[in-house]
């Protein structure tokens, strides 16, 4: 296969500048991850005193030693609701990801009960729904480590109706034959009681687990009955009387061990998943991805600079290289997993649109997953493009993307503007996975562009009323517009809103893509035994 030859020299000044810029942005993301962790660590003493493990320690104990761990939506809700992104960074109050437990690839969702008692926030709920969606799409057994103070009632209107979906999803996962193993480490009450209730296997931590619809205060208010937590829903009650739990464990670590053993029974082991081709490293180190591209989307670069550092042997079979050259399509392997790639070297023009649409259809014909490397200011505009039928050709591409049946993995590696976000399989096109680089920008258009458009419209409006706009006033208005819009285009802004499944280190792109491709392939081999109604508890 042809070998890509990148032009950017890692010893050049450009590379060094790119790298410094990227590392600064990455540093902010890492710091945020550290702040969420530090926020939880503040409770370390309290948890230790209660004989409990911190949620991130529970996750580490649950995972197999040596397991890879692809964290999902680590920055959900950052800067929203009670999360200030600083000392109160919360990560959606759920620690989640895909890893290996007892040799099985599973989705793990752990309430971050060290932050606000694991209270469910609107974005935390959205995160949970995404996790369930990922579990269903990828046929991943779901292990939940539950301990939550319940929904944050301040925001009940943003959660109550949609919240029911998480329980419906649980029922559907069970019916689809995807087992759910839930450890109740502490409180899981009221609405939260349905979480274990709808899980296929429930492990209760003795003396800590609490599962009931109404706690003592609510009960007293509702019926006047006076009862203790233990009487209403302690581990003994559920293990011996109500039968809501299958297993009682002595402490957090014991419960996690039981969960590992249960999972090994609940989910049959799959034969070792070997990629169809021999994995080979790229000729150009993936570490260079930190410096291979400028962080400013306004500075164009050839997406092959990225592909050269992503693909096995840096080999890329360039599809229709000379037709619609601004839209790059072709095939390569990542860690031995074959994949189609679509990238952008500028706006998508009519030729690029139909080229991409054809490529997507060919990948569907051959059953090849597609990776989208988004870096586009959108579809081409202007008379030439319009005369060339950009609307109808762009529509073909969107049709192809929307109806494609092979797994899509999207990376936001630069700009994601206008309908380019759609055609290149942004969140609303339901890619199997979607991740952002720290430099990614997402918006209907660039802030300056938007301000200019607004300025022109404003000038015309003023002119129609018969006067002229002071240029200084116009500039001030435009600057204000840019200033307001700019922060809403960042990777973190989008990641907080679950426009992606997480911001990753660009240098990890190859590993993340390989992990996702393996996950998707494994899902196809996982034989499910669906039933009509999910498994009901006796």
């Amino acid at each position: 296969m042809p070998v890509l030859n990148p032009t950017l020299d890692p010893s050049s000044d450009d590379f060094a500048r790119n790298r410094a810029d990227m590392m600064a942005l990455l540093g902010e993301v890492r710091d945020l991850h550290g702040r969420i962790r530090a926020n939880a660590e503040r409770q370390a003493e309290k948890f230790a005193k209660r004989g409990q493990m911190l949620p991130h320690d529970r996750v580490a104990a649950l995972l197999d030693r040596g397991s890879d761990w692809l964290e999902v939506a680590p920055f959900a809700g950052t800067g929203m609701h009670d999360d200030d992104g600083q000392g109160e960074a919360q990560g959606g109050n759920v620690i989640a990801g895909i890893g290996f437990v007892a040799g099985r690839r599973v989705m793990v969702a752990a309430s971050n009960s060290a932050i606000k008692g694991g209270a469910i926030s609107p974005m935390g709920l959205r995160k949970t729904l995404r996790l369930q969606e990922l579990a269903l799409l990828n046929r991943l057994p779901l292990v939940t480590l539950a301990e939550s103070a319940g929904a944050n009632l301040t925001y009940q209107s943003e959660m109550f109706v949609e919240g029911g979906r998480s329980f419906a999803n649980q029922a559907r996962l069970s019916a689809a034959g995807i087992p759910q193993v839930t450890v109740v480490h502490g409180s899981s009450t009221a609405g939260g009681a349905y979480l274990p209730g709808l899980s296929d296997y429930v492990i209760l931590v003795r003396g800590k687990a609490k599962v009931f619809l109404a706690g003592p205060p609510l009960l007293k208010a509702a019926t006047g009955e006076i009862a203790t937590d233990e009487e209403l829903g302690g581990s003994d009650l559920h293990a011996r009387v109500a039968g809501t739990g299958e297993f009682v464990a002595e402490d957090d670590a014991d419960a996690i061990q039981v969960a590992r053993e249960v999972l090994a029974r609940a989910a049959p082991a799959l034969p070792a998943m070997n990629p169809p081709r021999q994995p080979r490293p790229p000729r150009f180190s993936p570490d260079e991805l930190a410096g291979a591209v400028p962080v400013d989307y306004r500075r164009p670069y050839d997406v092959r600079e990225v592909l050269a550092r992503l693909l096995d042997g840096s080999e890329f079979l360039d599809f229709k290289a000379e037709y619609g050259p601004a839209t790059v399509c072709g095939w390569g392997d990542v860690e031995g997993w074959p994949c189609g790639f679509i990238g952008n070297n500028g706006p998508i023009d009519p030729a690029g649109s139909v080229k991409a649409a054809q490529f997507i259809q060919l990948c569907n014909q051959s059953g090849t997953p597609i990776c989208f490397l988004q870096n586009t200011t959108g579809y081409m505009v202007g008379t030439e493009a319009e005369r060339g039928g950009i609307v109808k050709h762009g529509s073909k591409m969107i049709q192809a993307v929307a109806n494609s049946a092979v797994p899509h993995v999207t990376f936001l590696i630069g700009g994601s503007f206008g309908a380019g976000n759609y055609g290149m399989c942004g969140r609303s096109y339901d890619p199997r996975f979607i991740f952002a680089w720290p430099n990614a920008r997402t918006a209907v258009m660039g802030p300056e562009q938007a301000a200019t458009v607004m300025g022109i419209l404003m000038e015309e409006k003023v002119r129609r009323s018969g006067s002229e706009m002071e240029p200084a006033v116009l500039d001030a208005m435009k600057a204000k517009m840019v200033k307001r819009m700019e922060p809403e285009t960042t990777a973190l802004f989008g990641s907080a809103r679950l426009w992606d499944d997480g911001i990753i280190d660009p240098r990890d792109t190859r590993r993340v893509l390989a992990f996702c491709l393996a996950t998707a392939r494994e899902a196809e081999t996982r034989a499910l035994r669906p039933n009509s109604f999910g498994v009901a508890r006796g």
Partner: protein
Amino acid sequence: MSFRRILIANRGEIACRIARTAKRLGYGTVAVYSDADAGALHTRLADQAVRIGPAAAAQSYLSIPALLDAARRSGADAVHPGYGFLSENADFAQAVVEAGLVFIGPAPSAIRAMGSKRLAKERVAAHGVPVLPGYTGADQSLDRLVGEAGRIGLPLMVKASAGGGGKGLRPVRDPAELRPALERAAAEALASFGDGELILERALLDPRHVEIQIFGDRHGNIIHLGERDCSVQRRHQKVVEEAPSPALTPELRAEMGAAAVAAACTVDYVGAGTVEFLLDGDGRFYFMEMNTRLQVEHPVTEAITGLDLVEWQLRVAAGEPLPLAQDQVRSCGHAIEVRLYAEDAGRGFLPQTGPVLAWVPPDGVRVDHGLVEGQPVTPHYDPMLAKLIASGATREEARRRLVRALGETRLHGVVTNRAFLAQVLETPAFVEGRATTGLLNDFVVGDAAPDLVVQAIAAAILAGKLGWWSHGTPTARLRLAWDGGEALAAVTPEGVAVGGETLAVSLVGECGGQATVTVDGGTHTLPVTRDGNALWLDWQGRTYVLEDAPLSKAAKRDGAAADTVLSPMPGTVVELAVEAGQAVAKGQKLMVLEAMKMQLELKAPAAGVVAELPVRQGQQVPARALLARLDLGGEGL
């Protein structure tokens, strides 16, 4: 006196060692084994192996009929007794000879004559061999012994006349101890050796133990092959042996050699024998006893003389004259031997048993052993596993080599005294050649508990290769447990957090029983063996075994409820077997419940004290009623 096929009436390293020389000289070899030794190395080295009985030595290696039967069945025409077991049993030697076989050792009469310390001492003293002042009379009445003790003076040593190997020895320092010591020693001697005869000897203050190797043939020649210094002893068991002795001058060597030969001459000795002396600080020596067999420590003599003493034994038994005359015996350099034992030096030298999971003897020294990976070390026999013998041009060279060899010896699966031996070899008194029999009195054995570095290394190895995490730091959490301690550890690419510290320790890789780790930037490769959840590893001369324990200490995985007994169904208590306040063992019957025409015995879920018993006999109870609650003494939850 010719013979062709030798039955080796022994096991372990000495059986292997004898078989090698016998084969080299063209003899057929027959090994014997008890059920505990099926598949052992000595059975594989011999041409054939014959089962002689169950594990118990009395019914196998100590059974004269079984051994003779084995010889008959295998067509052996000679018997080598090795050391220990029946090697100094005159009846055995007699029986072998009467069965028409060649006994590779001295005449039964010589064994018998030297077997009684009392008679031996009287005999050699009569021939001018110096003996310690004492009492060796036939009158064994308590009054006589007490009177003689008064004459000899304190301190003195009470010895069983038939004893050996440190058994039946009792020092007396205080007059008040004398009578009880005599009574107990006599009773012990009777029980252990079937003979209550005692001798009394003046006790020397921290003497050296120096013994002379002698050899005699059937042609009236008796020579000596120099001395061995076996002063380093623990409770009269030899730990380190060397040749030559750092304490002997050529003159003293000649003098002691002559005395040893004189002692041997008193019984017309044939074959290999050892005359043991005590040597005091002034160069005076005293006969202790004569061992009428090959000694455990014979290799140090072989190392400096270049001779094969088993070969000499076989030549003498075949009727050949000694290969050398006294003035032809040469000695060169220095040799030191240590005995590797399956014993836990840190816990009172308690004998250890277990499977030999890994055994890699060191290079550069002679190693006599009978070990095979996969074979168990059983409690039935002496726990000696191997002997390491280092030689060199100088004593220091030999010592240095032996310390290094001990450090490289890899034996996993059973705890050994390896580190203790190295510690002894590094003791200043030993380094300087000043060791006496008092060296190991009040010896403080080095701490065997794993320190933080060892804990961190074990954690890093057990955690294995860490995974890739898209966010945060890959972390493996585990709980290490070892004999006497435990620790939680968290392993990350940055290091290992354990015991409140983070150590710069990480695993490079593990392959073929070796793990490579970095510790504070330095790279080390160390032997490791995995046994289920246990990890054996060697670090800086010590062997550690740490368990990869479940993270939860509280885990009770037998499914039993912690401390309560509930009625499994409605029924009647027909019998109460315990009362409140009573201590109960796990599984002990608490009561009997009659329900649905079944009598259900309810048992204690754990050991504890019955704290609550809210039922009486005949009481009707509903399902899930509390029948008993135990106080588990804090260990419950």
